[in-house]
């Protein structure tokens, strides 16, 4: 089960609101490669892993992604403080504002609401871990894209942290894949699905 600690995993302290940036960054909450998708993907996949350490890894990374979702939400929250109607009207945030004011709503930068279709939980350890490695790279690329758009060092700082974590997660998932393969027939990893087929 989950508990909550009343702090962010890494500080978010943004002095200057910026609605355009907020509109772009919201994709890392509710976009195709955002933190909600990452968390639900790993927390869903962990049940069909046959190796307990791999289930543990998925649990731990899935939990960390919830903390990242919180950080991105904090970034959006601080970027949308004290905005005038004029500022909003002149920004890319106007459509989001109409439906959500400056509340946090999981959507992509183009306004598409979050959907579970962004991830798969295939019930096959080799397949799922490949999906996870791809997911971390997609998230890393998204953060790279955002960093090109951001001038404000207050915003760059937590985004760089989040980007680094994606790279570490990718590394860990690669190791987990090797662990899974070590427990299978090295002449044919695909001979059966250890999560489903009786041996």
């Amino acid at each position, binding site marked *: 089960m989950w508990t909550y600690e009343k702090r962010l995993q890494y500080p978010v302290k943004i002095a200057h609101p910026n609605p355009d940036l907020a509109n772009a960054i919201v994709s890392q909450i509710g976009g195709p490669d955002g933190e909600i998708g990452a968390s639900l993907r790993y927390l869903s996949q962990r049940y069909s892993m046959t190796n307990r350490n791999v289930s543990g*890894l998925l649990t731990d990374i899935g939990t960390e992604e919830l903390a990242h979702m919180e950080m991105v939400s904090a970034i959006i*929250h601080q970027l949308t403080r004290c905005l005038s109607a004029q500022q909003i009207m002149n920004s890319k945030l106007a459509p989001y504002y109409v439906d959500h004011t400056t509340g946090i709503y999981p959507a992509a930068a183009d306004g598409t609401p979050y959907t579970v279709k962004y991830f798969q939980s295939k019930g096959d350890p080799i397949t799922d871990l490949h999906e996870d490695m791809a997911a971390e790279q997609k998230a890393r690329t998204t953060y790279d894209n955002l960093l090109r758009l951001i001038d404000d060092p207050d915003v760059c700082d937590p985004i760089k942290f989040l980007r680094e974590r994606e790279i570490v997660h990718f590394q860990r998932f690669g190791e987990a894949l090797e662990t899974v393969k070590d427990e299978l027939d090295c002449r044919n990893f695909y001979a059966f699905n250890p999560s489903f087929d009786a041996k």
Partner: protein
Amino acid sequence: MSEQELLLHKIDVASFALDDTRLFLDTHPECEQAVCYYDKLCQMRDHALEDYACKYGQLCAYRPSENGMWGKNPLPWENGGNA
């Protein structure tokens, strides 16, 4: 930084080191050095958390709290909420 911010920073640093080591231990469970490091950090973090809870309010569920967890201090995403 204020004393409160410094103590919270200490908690943040110990917690993150634990987060990262925990993931490492998930894929390298036999690494004794990592296990030792993890235990040492746990202790450091627990002391810092107790100290913080005494002076500034409770951060964690399932731990004693005089004034409840929520009303007294800023939320983590508010200004002043996180060092």
